[in-house]
């Protein structure tokens, strides 16, 4: 079953990634191609572009990604637990409560240190 699904998803992924390129290929046959210096310059609201864009950005974005990663892993652990939950005893609920509580702790810490507010 898993392998049958795998073949389907694999074909889907390949078609999904190929389709945009096919579309762009068709458009390449149809469209005009006359680039010039002004056309291919970087857009910056009509002013001359200064430097390239690959400059430094705020660490704030990184902090949000960081908290996200931790919660994402929590989800990976909790989803199988949720599926099995119907057949498990009270003990399972207790363990999951402790698990969620421990991670809630991390969120509270982030809140208290102002990592969650956008500066």
């Amino acid at each position, binding site marked *: 079953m898993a392998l049958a699904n795998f073949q389907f998803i694999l074909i889907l992924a390949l078609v999904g990634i190929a389709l945009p390129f096919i579309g762009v290929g068709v458009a390449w046959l149809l469209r005009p191609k006359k680039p010039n210096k002004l056309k291919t310059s970087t857009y910056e609201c009509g002013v001359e572009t200064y430097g390239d864009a690959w400059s430094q950005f705020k*660490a704030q974005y*990184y902090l949000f990604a*960081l908290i996200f*990663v*931790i919660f994402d*892993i929590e989800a990976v652990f909790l989803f199988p637990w949720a599926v099995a939950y119907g057949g498990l005893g009270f003990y399972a609920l207790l363990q999951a409560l402790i698990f969620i509580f421990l991670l809630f702790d991390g969120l509270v810490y982030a809140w208290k240190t102002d990592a969650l507010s956008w500066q």
Partner: protein
Amino acid sequence: MPIIPLSWFLLVGAGLFSIGLYGALARRNAVAVLMGVELLLNAVNINLVAFNRYIVPAQVTGQIFAIFVLAIAAAEAAVGLALIIAIYRTRDTVNLDEIDLLKG
């Protein structure tokens, strides 16, 4: 029934491990080294899951181990990259052979 021989999976794991090792040892940039380490962990996970599938197919032990490795890899990446960002902020470089503060 498994059709593909077990050793094929193990060979892929070994290949990925060697590539990751090269990346972790040879690169100067700290982020690139971290990417090499992630490849190493992935290679190990392939072996765990392959052994699970071929030797104890009635259990899920190997998969559970692999999930734990996944979680630890994520924690490692999060802290490691935070360190790299902090070092970059103070030292303005992420090249490991220039970060030698402990050498004094």
